């Protein structure tokens, strides 16, 4: 196996491509740094000069509003110049290859590439071909990873639960297609969460998912019992068109989070969702907007976490 391409020769974070393979110390460093930035985002002047003079290119080969916006805000709060490229509608549709696009932007003196792509592994390919002073941050690749989302989930869990030891975390829904689930699971197991559960029908769980270090439940009630944290995954509408699920109604009946099912978890459980939510498909509005939901704070922490990641990979 080649050297972990995210780390430089000194074992420091050169790119953030995946949570898998990152040592606990680096994850903790990111979370601690994020904590120091939460204060910044609450100040009247929400800027620090850590990336002044640096250029951050948001390269989104797949459309996104929220993730791109939070990366943009994070970069601006670090005083970087931000260039947004929505490539889903530009050069790739003219046939330019991923590496050609990156080479052209590199010629415009980029420092950080924030890459989202529909193909698993695309940011690894970019990272192999950028110049030594350039950094790549994965903003979501196919089904593979969404490490900043995973980190903000970890941040949120640490904020509310203080410690990872002793927790039961249940991840519910379409794990098969979810980069969010993969990143979070790696983060949780690395930080010492003793029990990570995945809950879903067989059609939405990948082959051999147990190898990721999780317990598999098909019965949601059993899976939620005594959970400290529930992470609901988004269910894409197109899953209903194939042979994976019969209907949104039946999915909600079996795997939707309702107040009744929530009562099986610990009284101080927190409910998370990476967004955007499908109310009435994977989560009931009364739960999404209820007292156990931390879905909006997740978004706030997302900015601090992305500031932390960018300042660690690109700051001196």
């Amino acid at each position, binding site marked *: *196996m*080649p050297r*972990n*391409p995210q780390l430089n020769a000194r074992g420091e974070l050169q790119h953030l491509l995946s949570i*898998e393979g990152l040592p606990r110390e680096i994850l903790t460093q990111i979370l601690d740094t994020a904590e120091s930035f939460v204060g910044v985002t609450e100040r009247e002047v929400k800027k620090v000069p850590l990336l002044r003079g640096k250029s951050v290119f948001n390269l989104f080969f797949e459309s996104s509003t929220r993730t791109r916006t939070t990366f943009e805000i994070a970069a601006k709060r670090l005083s970087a110049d931000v260039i947004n490229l929505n490539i889903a509608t530009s050069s790739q549709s003219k046939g330019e*290859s*991923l*590496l050609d696009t990156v080479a052209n932007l590199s010629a415009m003196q980029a420092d950080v590439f924030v890459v989202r*792509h529909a*193909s*698993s*592994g*695309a940011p*690894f*390919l970019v990272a192999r071909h950028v110049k030594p002073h350039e950094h790549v941050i994965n903003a979501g*690749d*196919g*089904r*593979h*990873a969404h490490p900043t989302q995973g980190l903000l989930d970890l941040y949120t869990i640490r904020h509310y639960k203080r410690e990872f030891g002793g927790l039961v975390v249940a991840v519910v829904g379409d794990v098969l297609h979810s*980069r969010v689930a*993969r990143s979070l699971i790696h983060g949780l197991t690395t930080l010492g969460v003793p029990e990570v559960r995945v809950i879903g029908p067989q059609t939405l769980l*990948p*082959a*051999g*998912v147990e*190898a*990721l270090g999780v317990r598999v439940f098909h019965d949601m009630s059993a899976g939620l019992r005594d959970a400290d944290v529930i992470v609901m995954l988004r269910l894409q509408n197109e899953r209903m068109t194939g042979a994976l699920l019969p209907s949104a109604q039946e999915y909600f009946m079996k795997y939707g989070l309702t107040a009744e099912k929530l009562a099986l978890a610990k009284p101080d459980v927190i409910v998370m969702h990476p967004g955007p939510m499908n109310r009435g498909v994977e989560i009931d509005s009364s739960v999404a907007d209820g007292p156990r939901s931390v879905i909006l704070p997740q978004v706030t922490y997302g900015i601090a976490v992305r500031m932390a990641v960018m300042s660690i990979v690109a700051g001196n």
Partner: protein
Amino acid sequence: MRILIRNGRLVDPASGRDAPGELLLADGRIAALDGEARGASAEQVIDAQGLVVAPGLIDLSARLREPGYEFKATLESEMEAAVAGGVTSLACPPDTDPPLDEPGLVDMLRRRAKALARARVYPIGALTVKLEGARLTEMAELAAAGCVAFSQANVGITDTQVLWRALQYAATFGYSVWLRAEDRWLAGGGVAHDGEVATRLGLAGIPVFAETVALATLIELVRATGTRVHVCRLSSAAGVELVRAARREALPITCDIGIHHAHLSEIDLGYFDAQCRLDPPLRSRRDREALAQALADGTIDCAVSDHTPVDDDHKLLPFGEAEPGATGLELLLPLTLKWGGERRLGLAQTLARVTSEPARILGVGAGRLAAGAPGDVIVFDPDAPFRVLPGALKSQGKNSPFLGYELAGRVRSTLVAGRVVYAQP
């Protein structure tokens, strides 16, 4: 032209012979061995001191990319690669553009290959028109033009009625049918073995039962039709077991693997290494072990290079978007030697998998060192090390999972029809 090869270690996989000796080639054929050869006069003498003299390799799957994909490779470049790799006969699958479904195309390919006078080229005709799996090709016409078998390349036939009729029709005239065993619906959209690595990397999986379901169908149809079927590129332990059972019943089924499947597994995908994007996919270590073992015990008849030159534009892409395939003609010998060494097989037994066994499936007289056999011979150093680097490959395809590997086994001379077509500079 008479050529005498002296002082070499003559290895003949067909007879099991492995002993020093002399070999005389005349009139395009092997004229004599040992005593009869020793005193013979010859225009050219090749000193094979310290080297192995063996039949040229016979590769049952090498894509030359003509017609249609000349930007990936040309007949000129790939025929040079073949003889540099010691491959003296190769069968090329019909997935060109247009596919080899018309006698004219087959005829043109054979003429072009013949004019280059390098390795012998055996075209495999398309089993269905445009490989679409709907209408049968004119198999008799294609056979008359030089097709040695019929195939769908990597494109399966989904309609089992068509598959059944195609096998029946081929059996009528005694043609062999070479098919991949992969259920297109079960494999649909997949890019990697449906296992631990694909789950971790978030790659769409191709389950093992995509192979076994198709294989079970194929075996039943062979039982019904009696067609000679060669199963191409097995990839799983479960697939090997099905073939083993079919052979116990003496069904006319043979099979091969791509030689890379004897060495690599899903683990080698590492961090999305598109060089390991292959069709069929690299499977688990247990599968690799079963394939390497079955190649040794003869359940798998032969190994092929599955040579598929891919240009950078189609390889330097995210894993799932990259075109499957690896260059292989120049690596078939060293990778076969590596496999044989790891299994502690003798050289004759090792080389049988890429000489006499594929010759039997192809129905040709080559693949052996015997008086009267075609003069297709290689002289090689089994221990000469070399590093697999793009610049060291004559193939236009520089794509290989083995880039950077240190392998052993270098061809010094290649002779086809009694003529030297390659000599190491």
